[in-house]
Each structure stands twice: as C-alpha cells, then as structure tokens.
C-alpha cells in the first residue's frame, strides 16, 4: 500500500471539511478523487502532504507517518497544485532548476531531469522563455513539469486542467497516462468526471467531506439501478416497429420522435441484438447510440445533486 488514510477528520471552526475519510492507494494506480467544489478533496490532499494538520486520523505514505518522516516522504512526493505556482520572472528552465535543487538535484543529473521534464510537457522549445509570455495551458504544463522534475514515486494533481484550452487539456491527459505507464502512482483530483473516467483506474467520490463511494468505474456504475437507453436514427419512421420492440425482453418503453427511435430497457437486459434485428427488418439504421450510465449519473443517484451544482 503506497498511501493509507484512516478516519481522517479536519474541521475549520464550525465547518467539518473532512469527515472520517478513509482511503488507500496501491502502487501503479491512478486514483481519481471526484466531487463537487467544497467536497473536501483538496483538504484531504493537503492533510496528506503536510499542509494541513488533521484533527484526528492517521496518514501513512510509503508506509511512513508524516510526523516522524516528513522530509523523507516529501522527497518522493510531487504535487501539482490547483493554482499555478511558478515564478513568472524566471525562465521555464530556471523554474525547473530552482525546484529541482530543492529536491537535492544538481550538476548533470539536474540538467538531464530538467530537459526531460520540459520535453515531457512539450515545453523544451520554450525553455528560455518567461512564463508570463505563456498561454494558460502552457503555464499549467510548466506547473506539472515542476512537480515531475525530481521523479517522485507519488504524484498528486489537484485539478491540473482547470481553465485551459482543449489542446492543452488533451496534452496533459495523455501525459498523465504516459506517466502511469512509466510506473508513477497518481492521485488525480477533479470535478470533471470525463477526465476521471478516462484516466483513473480507481475512483473515490467525495461529497460534503465524506467518501460516498469508491471502486473502479465499472464497480461504481454497477451501483446504478437506472435504465439503459438505446437511441437509433432511422432512414424512415415506422410506427409498427415500436409495438414489435416493446415485445422484446427487458424493454420498458419505446417511442419514435421524427426518425429517432428511443428504447428504454432494464439494466443488463442484453437485448441490443434483438432491437437491431427488428429495426433492420423495417428500416435502414443511420446511427445507433447506447447510452451507459456515467459518473455524473452515479453521483446524481448517490447524492440527489449534480456534480456541478
């Protein structure tokens, strides 16, 4: 177990920011911490990296307690903070050198690691430029590079894609996948469910300071009791088709709106072949879309609220 958090509690005056949170992370995982703003994600992480002193609970990182092994733990931690934390009056290269030196890197090793981090984040050709001339996406990438320069065992990323263009977002997502393939363990905090779904091997959903669900995305979706929905676009509408489809096993409802047929079935009814067969007999299929429950719907089911409420 790379990280183990047991019964973590943190209170700010009258606000219970983290309420008895327990979670663990295995080596090589990408753990997604999902929840709306104010769910307690960042407070949990701040307690893990020593920025916040918890009121109670135990945190073990690399099997060590933070109180007794603070510097040892920090040496193998890489943190990408939510807000960009770079010096705008130092070049990209100097920023990485500065932060690399804080982790004891020097000489040719420092130079090598700095170049590597710049290349990894696609900033090598901008290394002599000052970040004040960078786009927000490039600043975010440099923010990430600063956390990677010392090759940490555990990387914590707190909403690293906030407020950036799709191209930079895609670059960052691909970089995270690549980092994981290279063996890094990552904790990825976000309230963007699409990102969490795409990259995380395991997900913890938090709300109002508590962990409300955890598991793989498949396990989380299995918690859902909602219906499955198949939407088929037809070349021409045929109303007798609806009656035939309603007779298929598991189908709860079917209706046509223009040339679009919607079929609502019970979860795991496995009737897609039957639907396709019925439709093909009567019309030509232009497109077909099976709508699976998303993490958004999981969150909605668990809390009764949307993630972005």
């Amino acid at each position: 177990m790379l990280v183990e958090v047991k019964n973590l509690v943190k209170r700010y005056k009258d606000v219970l920011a983290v309420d008895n949170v327990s979670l663990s992370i295995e080596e090589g995982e990408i753990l997604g911490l999902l929840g709306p703003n104010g769910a307690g994600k960042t407070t949990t992480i701040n307690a893990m990296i020593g920025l916040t002193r918890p009121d109670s609970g135990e945190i073990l990182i690399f099997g060590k307690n933070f109180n007794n092994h603070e510097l040892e733990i920090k040496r193998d931690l890489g943190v990408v903070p939510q807000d960009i934390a770079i010096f705008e009056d130092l070049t990209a290269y100097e920023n990485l050198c500065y932060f690399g030196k804080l982790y004891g890197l020097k000489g040719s090793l420092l130079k090598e690691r700095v170049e590597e981090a710049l290349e990894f984040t696609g900033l090598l050709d901008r290394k002599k430029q000052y970040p004040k001339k960078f786009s927000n996406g490039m600043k975010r990438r440099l923010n990430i590079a600063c956390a990677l320069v010392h090759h940490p065992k555990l990387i914590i990323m707190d909403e690293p894609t906030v407020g950036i263009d799709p191209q930079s977002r895609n670059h960052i997502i691909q970089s995270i996948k690549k980092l994981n393939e290279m063996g890094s363990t990552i904790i990825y905090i976000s309230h963007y469910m699409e990102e969490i779904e795409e990259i995380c091997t395991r997900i913890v959903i938090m709300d109002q300071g508590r962990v409300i669900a955890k598991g793989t995305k498949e396990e989380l979706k299995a918690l859902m009791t909602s219906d499955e929905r198949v939407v088929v676009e037809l070349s021409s509408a045929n109303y007798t088709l609806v009656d035939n489809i309603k007779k298929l096993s598991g189908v709860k409802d079917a209706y046509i709106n223009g040339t679009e047929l919607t079929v609502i079935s019970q979860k795991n009814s496995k009737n897609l072949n039957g639907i396709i067969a019925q439709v093909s007999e009567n019309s030509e299929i232009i497109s077909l879309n099976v709508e699976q429950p998303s993490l958004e719907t999981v969150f909605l089911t668990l809390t009764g609220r949307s993630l972005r409420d």
Partner: protein
Amino acid sequence: MNVLQIAYYTVLRNIRDWKLFLLLIGAPLVFYLIIANVTTNVNQGINLEKFKLAYFDADGGPTAQQFEGFLQTKEILTAFDIQKVDSLDNGKQMVKDGKIEALIYLKNDFSQSLKQGEKTNIEIFSNKSISATRLLVEGFINTVNTSSAIKKIAGDINVTEVSSGIQQIAISSTGKTFNDADKSAFIGLLEMLSYGALLGCLSVINSMKKNTLLRFNISPINDLAYVSGQFLGNYLTLCPSSGLFIAFTYFIWGSSMQGNILNIILTFLLLTGIITALGMIVGYLTKKTGLGAIISVCLNALLSGAAFVWMMGTAHGFLKWFVFLSPQYYVYVIVADTIFEGFTSRIQVSLISLAMAVTALTAVTLFLGRRKAV
C-alpha cells in the same frame, strides 16, 4: 546549501523586477548625485548677492570670540558680508538707514553668564521679519547649544525661547559640522534607503499571492531554509543601495573620518538587515500588497521623522521617546560622531543598539516565515 540557492534565485528575481530595482537603486543614485552636488557646494561660483550685516561685541569674552571666529569662517563669508561696528547706536542707525540688513549684538555679560550657567541671549536688530541673520545666529547657537536668539523686529524685542545652558557638545569654531542642509539631506537619503523595506514586504506577499510559497512548503527542506534564503536574497539586493550611501558618505566626509570607514560600513550593513527584516515582517503580518506597502512607507517615514526632529532639536513628548527605536537615529549618531570626533562610547552604544535590533528583527522574521502546517 538550499539557503544559498534560494538567496541566489531571490536576488535574480529581484533584479529582474526592473521597476522595483530602479526604484531601489536608480532613484537613490540620482538623489545621491543631487545631494552630493548640493552638500559639497559645487555651485559656490554662482554670483549671489551677499547679505549685509554687522555685529557689535560688548562682551569680548571667550564665547563671544568664538562667535566672531564663526562669523569669519569661509562658509559664512560666502553668503554674508560682515562688518564690525564700534557701538550699538551706530549699528542700529545702519539698520534704520538700510545699509545693513541686521545687527547682531552680544551683551557685555554674554560669556560670563554662560560660564556661570545662566540664561543669556544674542540679540538681532532687523527690519525684516525673517532674516537670514537669524538663521546664522541660530546655527551658531545650535552648535554651542546655548540659547536662542532674541529677534528684534522693527525695534520690538521678543524673547522666544531660552535653552537650559551649555552641555557637553563640542564647539567647532571652523564651522565644520552638520549644518541644517546637511542634516536634512542625510536623513532624506536615509529615509530613501529605508524604503528598501518595500522589497522585503512585496517579496513575501508575492510569494503568498502567487502560490509559489506552497512549493517550498511541500519540498524537503528545513523549516527555516526558505525564509532564511529569502531574507538573505533581499538583503543582498539592498546592499548596492547601502554601498551607494557608504560611497556618498565617504565622498562627502571621508577626509574627516580618521580612517573609521569600517564603522560606517558596519553601520550600513546592520541598517540594511533591519530594513530587510522590517519589510518582511510587515509582509508576513499584513499579507496584502497595498496595506503592506502603506505600512512599510509610513513606518519608515515615522522612524526617519523621529530621527529628523531629534536631530533638529525639536523632538518632544512621544517622539523624544520614540527616537530610541529609530535605526536612522543611531545611524545618524554613528556617522556624525565618526566624522566630527564625537564620543567613542556613543558610537559603540549605537552600534550595539543596531546589532541588537537586527538580531531581534531577524529572529521575528524567521519565526513568522518558518514553514508550518496551517
């Protein structure tokens, strides 16, 4: 090792903030050049009309002779056309006729009164309410710290103020002392140097506002490494300003320093430490750019102002007490006593006071800036 690296990058960043750097180095440099120009009387060749005045010495005692000597110094004769008259009536008549602007009158018991510790006066007869002669006499009085002049305007005598008598202040008959213009210039420059506190203040607030402080809080460095490096970096950035001040002091008064330049260097190194620490403390306590800048400026204006009013002899009440908290006051005492052969003990006490202040303030800075869980 980390402390030096942090200091290096702090200096690099400070230098690259060219607006702030210009404010801290460029502006003082320009002011030093102007003030040096004024202080060394480079413009003495300009043909100004001299003030005409006369004096009548009915006393003839040692202090009166010192005053006569003072009137005959090169500096005084540059601005005044002075003549001696043989009676008080003749002098008064010359004032009435407009031949002279003022008559200075030393009474026959002037020196004797001073010797016995009694109150005494130097009288000025003039038809002008603000007479340059009054400034001249006050200049002399300030140097001997004896009594204020009685100004006689259109024949009326008004006693304005009398001093408590002569204290142990060296009397310079050559006029080689800080005159009022020098004092103002000196404190003005000290105040300008003290605005370097803004550097420390802004660097602390910027690191908080721009989140870079977080990187140091999560890195495996000693709790005091970052604040120590930042302090050292800011200190080193301000050193060129102090260097300029040392060079200025040496250029203007170097020949009078009796080889005590080390006193001056040590003084300014200590002052730079105090300024840096003060600025950083204000930054840690306020955490806001505008408020921090305002407090830094006001604090330095207050400390410099206290030194200034003390130096001009007009400090009363709160300011008389507050001056002992003013590093600028100690710097002035050290520089003045080093140049004009003042008391060695006073120089030593002032240096110790500055050293104690820098130690205490640095400790507070390190305490406030240490890494801590929040």
